[in-house]
């Protein structure tokens, strides 16, 4: 069986059919063009680009990253070129890469989210991922991700105005309980939820007595958080019927399969791309290899296929 005989296609709602379930995670592939020297972006299901805000943001002072046991903490502070430059300079280049483009957006208010989303719809993106879970910006973002009321309002507002691109809501691992947020997203018409964003975390240098991240708190990502993400994806996928996109520590095809068995329809590869820039493609190839090995022709046969009873 060659890769092409396998059916890896998945649908993120009715709006966004993907040829395979592997995407980049926001903030780990730049604006897309940066990865083209390492692999053909068109091979992936979609590219999720670095988060965008209404106006350019400078980001946080350094150190912005530090390594922890099997993981890393980042506090980039959503450094980005801003909506205008994104649409003018970055988006055309990204679109030319041949992969569906999902923009990741963050606003300080529901109105800001709507404004950005509208402009992106007009500019022609395939999907919009609402980042309501970034631990690295003071206002907006995670404020929506942890409060069910403003969360619900936000999605309602965005949904009302956007009809073209698929709307994906990126959940925070701190949302309590996460099922309620996922259900609210579904009820307000989101096409999918993605999770998890990074987990708030901190590291300290005992010698200097200083935090190893200038901003004190940052977001933990990488293999260390995979077991946490897997559980939240499992719980969430039981609670909703819209597709769940699994994120967190995915590095190999087997990691992706684990998320898919737990209930994810698709996955995003983040931190692993820092270690190996072609990681998303290796994950895809790993999934194909697993399917061939097990004689599975259609990836949909695996979604939520966790076996939990007694045998």
């Amino acid at each position, binding site marked *: 069986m060659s890769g092409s005989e396998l059916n890896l296609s998945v649908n993120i709602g009715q709006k966004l059919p993907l040829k395979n379930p592997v995407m980049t995670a926001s*903030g780990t592939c730049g604006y897309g063009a*940066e990865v083209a020297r390492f692999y053909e972006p068109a091979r992936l299901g979609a590219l999720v680009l670095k988060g965008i805000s209404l106006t350019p943001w400078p980001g946080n002072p*350094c150190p912005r*990253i530090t390594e922890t046991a099997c993981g*890393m903490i980042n506090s980039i502070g959503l450094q980005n070129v801003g909506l205008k430059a994104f649409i003018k300079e970055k988006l055309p280049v990204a679109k030319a890469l041949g992969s569906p483009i999902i923009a990741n957006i963050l606003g300080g208010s529901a109105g800001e989210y709507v404004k950005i989303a509208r402009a992106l719809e007009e500019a022609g993106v395939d999907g919009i991922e609402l980042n309501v879970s970034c631990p690295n910006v003071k206002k907006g973002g995670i404020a929506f991700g942890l409060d069910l009321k403003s969360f619900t309002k936000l999605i309602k507002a965005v949904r009302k105005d956007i009809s073209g691109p698929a709307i994906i809501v990126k959940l925070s691992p701190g949302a309590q309980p996460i099922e309620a947020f996922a259900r609210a997203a579904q009820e307000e018409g989101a096409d999918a939820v993605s999770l998890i964003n990074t987990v708030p975390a901190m590291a300290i240098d005992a010698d200097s007595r*200083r935090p190893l991240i200038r901003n004190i708190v940052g977001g933990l990502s990488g*293999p260390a958080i995979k077991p946490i993400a897997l559980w939240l994806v499992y719980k969430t996928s039981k609670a909703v019927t819209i597709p769940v996109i699994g994120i967190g520590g995915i590095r190999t095809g087997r990691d992706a399969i684990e998320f898919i068995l737990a209930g994810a329809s698709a996955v995003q590869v983040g*931190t692993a791309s820092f270690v190996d820039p072609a990681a998303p493609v290796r994950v895809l190839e790993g999934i194909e290899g697993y399917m061939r090995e097990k004689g599975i022709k259609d990836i949909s046969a695996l979604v939520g296929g966790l076996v939990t009873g007694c045998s």
Partner: protein
Amino acid sequence: MPMPGQFFMVGLPGRLDPLLKRPFGLFRHEDGLLSFMYRVRGKGTLIMSGLVPGDTVEILGPLGNHYPLPEGKYRIRKPLLVAGGTGVASLLPLLRELKKNSIFVYGGRNRDELLCIDEVRGLAGEFIAATQDGSEGVRGTAVDVVTDLIRGRDKDGFLLYACGPAGMLKSLQGLGLQGYCAMEENMACGTGVCLGCAVKTSTGYKRACTEGPVFDINEVVFERF
């Protein structure tokens, strides 16, 4: 062909901890062999120091920009290379190109910290070492040496190339010379996608791995905490 000042990301295969590759400036490139020179600082370099011939490392590179050679209007300037500690690893490849047409100032805490001192001495047109304990060269810092060196001379006669601790670079910046410095920032990707390696410059944050590691020393805003 890697150029002086460029770097590679070096990783230990088959491990999740340490997870990320580590950046190291290219130290030597000869007969198809890449060499790095590094100081054991933490987890990654400690494991690297235990590697034996036959072990494998993963490398990604060459990455980043490089030291511009003194060309064009800068041709007439005298290259002044200033290394602090392992900063020598990044400047030696440049020195190998500039050779006698250069001054090399090399500072460190003590004699033991001044690695490759013989090679540097042999290559440079003029060589001055500085140690804090006076165990090699003059007693004092590399910045002290440079301050003395340029006193009373036309600053436009020099073109600075500096690599070393941020404190040294900041002091050098204060001397008002034209030139470049190589910046070290924590790096996750080395390829421009994580935005982790931001260096503050007069025109905003720039990525040390992509727009750097070599910057115009007078554009860097030093504010390390």
